C-alpha cells in the first residue's frame, strides 16, 4: 500500500507557516522563551509559546470557547489540507479519516475546572468547561469544521504518540473506503505542566536545551501543532511506519531504539530527525544512532522549538520532509562540539538526499519511528 504526505501544516513558537518556520531554522534562529509563573508559589518557568501574531486570522466560530490546544490543531490541520490543494467537499469528507495525537491534552481548562471544584465546591463547577477537558475535544472541533463524518480517533501517549498516530493512520488507509487521513499532533502549555515535569526532573529552569549532552540538564516545554494530510499520492512517501514498542525502564530505551533504527535502516538513509531534548532520551538515542547509523547526519529542532510532546512527532515529520525537499539541514543549536554523532552543526547541504528516518522516544516508556522518502 502506498502512503504519501500530500500536505503539511505547522503551528510553532517560531510562527505558523511551514516555509517561514523552516527558513528561520535554517538561519539558526530559536524561539524566544517567555516566563510563566506558578499559581501557588514564586517559581518562574521558561517556555516557548506560540506568539499571538502567529494565530491571527485563524479564528473559527466553532472555536470561540475552545482552548489553545484546539485552536492550534485546527490551524495546522486546515493548513495541511490547503497545502495539499484538497477541497474537502461532503463526498471527500466522508472518505477522510482524522487521527489526533495528544499527550497532556487540554490542561488549561482541566486545571480551571478542577480548581473551581477545589476552591468553591462541586456546585460551582462549570458545565461549559467540562466538555473541553475531554481528550477528544480538539478532534471533535476539527471534525466539525471540516465536516468529517467517518472515522475520528484521538490517541494519547507520550512524545512518541505522533508517530503512533501515523501508524494508526496507515492501518486506516488500508481501507479502500478512506482516501485521506489527516493526522494532527497538538499540545498547549500551562505552569502546572512545568511544575509536573520539574518534579519529574525532566525540566530545566531556562534555555538552552543542550542536545545529547551527558549532563542531561533537561528540556524546555513548548506548544503548538503539526499536521500532515496522508493520501495515496504525494511528494513524500512514508515507506515504513514502524510500530515501535514500549520499554519498562529508562535504561532499556536504547535497546528498542536500536531495533527501530535497524528495521528502518534497511535502505540507504541520508538523515535522521531525532527527538533529543536534553533529557535521558538523548543518551538512549545517541547510543542507538552510533551503533546503527554512525555515518548519517542527525538533526534535532528541540533546542530551537522546545519539547511539544504530543505535537513533537508531527513536527519531526514536517522537518524531515522539509529537509528532503530543500536538500538541506538547519544547524543543531547548543550542541557541544565533542559529541561523537554526525550532527548538523551548521547549515548543511545534502544534495541528492532521498530518505530520512524520524525517531521518537517518549518520556513515558514509548518509542516509535518511520522512514520517509521524497519522490524523485
Amino acid at each position, binding site marked *: 500500500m502506498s502512503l504519501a504526505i500530500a500536505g503539511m501544516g505547522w503551528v510553532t513558537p517560531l510562527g505558523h507557516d511551514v516555509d517561514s518556520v523552516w527558513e528561520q531554522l535554517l538561519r539558526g534562529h530559536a524561539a524566544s522563551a517567555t516566563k510563566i509563573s506558578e499559581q501557588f508559589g514564586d517559581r518562574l518557568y521558561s517556555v516557548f509559546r506560540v506568539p499571538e501574531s502567529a494565530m491571527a486570522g485563524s479564528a473559527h466560530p466553532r472555536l470561540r470557547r475552545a482552548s489553545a490546544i484546539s485552536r492550534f490543531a485546527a490551524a495546522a490541520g486546515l493548513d495541511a489540507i490547503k497545502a495539499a490543494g484538497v477541497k474537502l467537499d461532503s463526498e471527500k469528507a466522508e472518505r477522510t479519516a482524522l487521527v489526533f495525537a495528544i499527550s497532556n491534552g487540554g490542561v488549561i481548562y482541566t486545571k480551571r475546572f478542577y480548581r473551581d471544584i477545589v476552591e468553591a465546591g462541586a456546585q460551582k463547577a462549570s458545565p461549559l468547561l467540562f*466538555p473541553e477537558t475531554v481528550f477528544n475535544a480538539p478532534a471533535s472541533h476539527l471534525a466539525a469544521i471540516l*465536516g468529517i463524518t467517518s472515522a475520528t480517533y484521538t490517541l494519547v501517549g507520550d512524545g512518541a504518540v505522533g508517530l503512533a498516530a501515523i501508524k494508526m493512520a496507515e492501518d486506516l488507509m488500508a481501507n479502500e473506503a478512506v482516501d485521506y487521513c489527516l493526522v494532527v499532533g497538538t499540545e498547549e502549555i500551562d505552569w502546572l505542566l512545568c511544575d509536573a515535569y520539574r518534579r519529574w526532573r525532566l525540566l530545566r529552569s531556562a534555555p538552552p536545551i543542550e542536545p545529547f549532552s551527558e549532563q542531561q540538564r533537561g528540556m524546555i516545554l513548548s506548544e503548538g501543532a503539526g499536521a500532515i494530510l496522508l493520501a495515496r499520492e504525494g511528494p513524500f512517501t512514508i515507506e515504513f511506519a514502524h510500530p515501535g514498542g*514500549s520499554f519498562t525502564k529508562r535504561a532499556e530505551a536504547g535497546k528498542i531504539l536500536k531495533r527501530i533504527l535497524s528495521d528502518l535502516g534497511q535502505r540507504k538513509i541520508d538523515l535522521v530527525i531525532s527527538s533529543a531534548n536534553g533529557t535521558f532520551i538523548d543518551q538512549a538515542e545517541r547510543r542507538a544512532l552510533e551503533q546503527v547509523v554512525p555515518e548519517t547526519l542527525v538533526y534535532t529542532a528541540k533546542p530551537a522549538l522546545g519539547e511539544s510532546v504530543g505535537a513533537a512527532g508531527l513536527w519531526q515529520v514536517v522537518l524531515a520532509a522539509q529537509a528532503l525537499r530543500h536538500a538541506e539541514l538547519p544547524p543543531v543549536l547548543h550542541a557541544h562540539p565533542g559529541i561523537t554523532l554526525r550532527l548538523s552543526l551548521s547549515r548543511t547541504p545534502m544534495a541528492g538526499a532521498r530518505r530520512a528516518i524520524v525517531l521518537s522516544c517518549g518520556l513515558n516508556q514509548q518509542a516509535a519511528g518511520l522512514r520517509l522518502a521524497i519522490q524523485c
Partner: protein
Amino acid sequence: MGKPSSANGKKVTARVAVVAAGVVSPLGFGLTETLESLCNSRDCVSPVIRFSVEQCRCKTAGQIPDDRLLASRGDVPRSRRLHRASHMMIEALKEVVTQAPQFKPELTVIGTTSGGMSYGEDYYRSLHQGRRLRRAPTWIANYPAQKPVLDAQETFGISSPCQVIANACASGTNAIGHAFECVRSGRYQRVLAGGFDAVSEMVFVGFDSLQASTPEKCRPFDRNRTGMVLGEGAAILALENLDLAGERGAPVLAEIIGYGISTDNFHITQPDPSGVGPQQAMERALQSANISADAVDYINAHGTATLFNDAAEGKAISRLFDGVPVSSTKSMMGHSLGAAGAVEAIVCLLALQHQFLPANINFGALDDHLALNIVANEARPAVVRTALSNSFGFGGTNASILMRKSEA
C-alpha cells in the same frame, strides 16, 4: 460461512476470533462472577465512597471494591505506587493471560477517557492546599492515560506497541473495532483490545455539572429516566486470526464480525436528536459484517439513561431493527466511560456463549416516543447468534461492533 473478500470497501482477508477475555467491573471479577451478576440482574450501583459527593445531585456509582482490587498487589512490582486503573488493567489482563498463555500480541489497542485522573487530582489539591508533595513524583509518573496499559503489559512481560484511544465514551468500542479491522485486514494476526477507566472526582463532578447524572436509579429508555450513573472497570479481549487460532487449537469464545464508526458533529456533548450518528455507526457495522438487520438477535445499547442519548439511540435502533431485544446493562453497573464498550463487549460475549438476554433493570415503562423491545428487569434465556454493542461519546463519536456466537 466462506471467507468474504470485501465489506464496506474494506479489505477482508481473515475472520476474527476472540480467543480469551478478561474483565473487572462492579458486576464482579472475571467472566464467571460477571455472568452470575448478569443472570441475576444484580444492581451493582452503590453510594460513592472515594470522594465527597455532598454537593452533587448524584450520590452513587458502580464501583470496584478496593479490598479486592488491591488484595493481590503484592504480586506486582512497584504495585503500591500504581493507580487503581493500573490494578484494574492488571486484573483483566491476568484473566486473559491465564486463558491464553501462548497469546503474543503484535499490537495493543485500549480505550480510556481519563487514565490515572485521581492522581492528577491529588497532585493539584496538594499544590493548592500547600501540603507536602512527597508523593508528587509517583502521582505524576502514574497519571498519564497510557500508564495503566503499560503497567499491565509489563506485569505479564508484554512489550507490544500500544495505541491508546481516547474517544470519550466510545473509546472501548473504538479500540475493539479498530483492533478487529487490523486483524481482519491481515495486517496483524493477534491484537489485544479493550478499555478501562476508574471513577474520579473531576469526571464525576463534570457529568453532574452537565446535569447528565441522576440522583435516582439509572433507568435507560424508561419514560421517567433522569440520567446516568458513572461506573468503572477494565476489560480486555484477545483477538486472533480465526484460522491461526484454529491451527493452534485455541478455543474460540466468539467472533467479531463487524465494526461501524461515525462522527455526527452536532454538538460537543449532545447527540444529533435525529439519531443520524448512531444510525450510521450501526448501519456501517452491518455493512462491515455483510449481514442484514434481521440477523441481529440482541442489542446491548449505549443506553446512558440521559434524555438526549436514549431518545437519539432509541430512534436509530427502531428505524433499523424490528423488535430486536434491547437492554442497557449500564443500569446494573453504571457507565464506565472508556471501559464501557469493552465491558459491554464482554456482556455480549457471555450472552452469546450462554444464550441469554441480559436485563435493563430499574425499568418501569417505555418512553412513549420510542418503539423498542426492552429486556425489562430480568435476564431471560434466548437464542442469541449475533449481538450488536453500541457506544457513543462526547464530540459526536459513535461506534458499534457486531459479535457472533462461536461455531465451535
